[in-house]
């Protein structure tokens, strides 16, 4: 197997006292779409900024297209296309002007630059927007210009931080189709961060980032399979009825307490649902039953709900 397009080894990062990343290690192969899934504050953006050379590597090593971000940032910069979560267009310039100066920053000029801009604008459905001032565009259109901008110099690796921010479902769908086409036809490697489960489902492989740690990685199917069987979530009728402990004792199974609810993983879960309700008829308010989702994987690995981490300190 060839060298990975993107390799992260033991990367840690701290802002003062706060540990934003802890010993993160993963590799992305050429032509792969790799998703970093995690709640906001989980460390995704910090990692993204390290890979896009805007934060220093404090500990560990990160290479993109064979270049170390710490020692040859310019080589990395030439090889990557970056789409930020927040806008990076000049709002006072037109769409065309934004692409032109972007091309200049990457050493593209003249006919080559003109052709590349025309082609990308056409393919992203922006041809009639060339003369529009960027700040007058809708959120979705701005996003498309951002993507056109990051693809202009034909990068080998695309880094996208929450690319669907501000996109309607249709545009989001188109974006993902475009990403898989890029991957398929040109072998472009894509690393994308997201906090959306449905977006994560579209990645070839995923890394789950929680409180700065990579708690799991694998294909979406592998991750779901790791949960095993079905997921049952029981809402107790009263908050303090020790339902989790009693379920554990009664059925001799592992039961996690999450936000007052009790969560159980089980093969043949439907049978357990029946037994549970029969065993504790008065203590159960409701039962949710389903095949494991990526959120279940997250809960299983971290012991808390995905959205619980949405605090600035990631606690």
């Amino acid at each position, binding site marked *: 197997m060839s060298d990975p397009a993107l390799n992260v080894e033991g990367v840690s990062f701290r*802002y003062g006292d706060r540990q934003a990343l802890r010993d993160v290690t993963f590799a992305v192969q050429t032509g792969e779409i790799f998703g970093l899934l995690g709640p906001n504050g989980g460390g995704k953006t910090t990692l993204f900024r390290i890979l*896009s*050379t*805007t*934060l*220093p590597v404090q500990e560990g090593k990160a290479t993109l297209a064979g270049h170390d971000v710490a020692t040859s940032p*310019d*080589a990395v*910069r*030439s*090889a*990557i296309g*970056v789409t*930020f979560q*927040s*806008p*990076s*267009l*000049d*709002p*006072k*310039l037109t769409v065309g*002007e934004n692409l*032109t*100066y*972007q091309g*200049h*920053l*990457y*050493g*593209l*000029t003249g006919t*080559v630059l003109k052709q590349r801009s025309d*082609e*990308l604008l*056409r*393919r*992203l*459905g922006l041809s009639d927007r060339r003369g529009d*001032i960027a700040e007058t565009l809708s959120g979705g259109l701005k996003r*498309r210009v951002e993507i056109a*901008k990051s*693809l202009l*110099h*034909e*990068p*080998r690796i695309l880094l996208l931080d929450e690319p669907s921010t501000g996109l309607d479902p249709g*545009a989001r769908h*188109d*974006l993902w*189709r*475009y990403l898989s*086409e*890029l991957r*398929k*036809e*040109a*072998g*472009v490697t894509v690393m994308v961060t997201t906090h959306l489960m449905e977006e994560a489902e579209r990645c070839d492989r995923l890394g789950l980032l929680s409180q700065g740690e990579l708690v799991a990685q694998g294909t979406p199917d592998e991750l779901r399979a790791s949960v095993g069987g079905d997921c049952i979530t029981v809402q107790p009728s009263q908050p303090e009825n020790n339902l989790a402990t009693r379920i554990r004792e009664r059925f001799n199974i592992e039961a996690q307490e999450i936000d007052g609810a009790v969560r159980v993983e089980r093969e043949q879960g439907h049978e357990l649902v029946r037994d549970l309700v029969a065993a504790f008829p008065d203590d159960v308010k409701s039962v949710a039953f389903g095949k494991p989702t990526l959120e279940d994987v997250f809960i299983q690995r971290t012991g808390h709900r995905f959205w619980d981490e949405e605090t600035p300190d990631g606690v």
Partner: protein
Amino acid sequence: MPPCLCASVVKRAGLMSQHTPKMSLAVWSLTKRELVRFVRQRSRAIGAFLQPVIFWVLFGAGFSGSFSMQGTEGGPSYAEFFLPGIAAMIVMFTSIFSAISVIQDRNEGFLQGVLVSPVSRTSIVLGKLCGGTLLAVLQGLLFLGLAASLQFTGLVDHVEWNLSVTGVLGTVAFLALMGFGLCGLGYIFAWRLDSIQGFHAIMSVLLFPMWLLSGAFFPADGSGWLRWIIAINPLTYGVAGLRRVMASDVASVAQLPSMGVCIAVSVLFAIVCVAIDVRMTKKHRI
């Protein structure tokens, strides 16, 4: 987005990634962007330009009777004395706007896109400073042109200055030198700040007094401590140089620092500021 986005765009991917951007191209592109932005934000342009003009007219009229240069009988009117000072003020204001645009670039997100591109950090700084300097020179010259015609309206006293080729070229050179240094100085503060409000504080307590105490507003022959402040202010030498190249009567500028000192201090100041700017831009900002 249209259905098929594949085809040739993507097939060439990677081929052009090795392009090394030329520094001149990047600097020119970033400079041009500053000019385009300036033109598109007209209120900013008008405000930065009109205020000094109003200052010149009002102070020129107000001090017209009471002002006299030490040691010169029947010397320049205050309007004439103040003319290079106002040109310096325009340069100062333009550089303040240039510095504010650094903060805007960061807040609007434009800066992050530039920072992940392979252009050298020096180009990023030079693009910003060249844009600001160019605007400063253009506005300074525009003001001088306007001043020349304003005196015929009777609003201001008669002014006279050196309009020979060397005089005009020297004026352009000193406006540019001051502009470059002041934009570089503004960048140092702006790079660390996240809010334009924060920069306003710097502007009032540092940059505006710097202009006030540069010999632009009143001659640098005050009491002891004031004299010292004026002497260590790098802008003093820019203003003095500008006075020297603009003076129609050499006797009126005889007390100012010599031309050599003016050029040396101004160039050194600009170099130091640019060096600090580049150093800061190279360092990651957390």
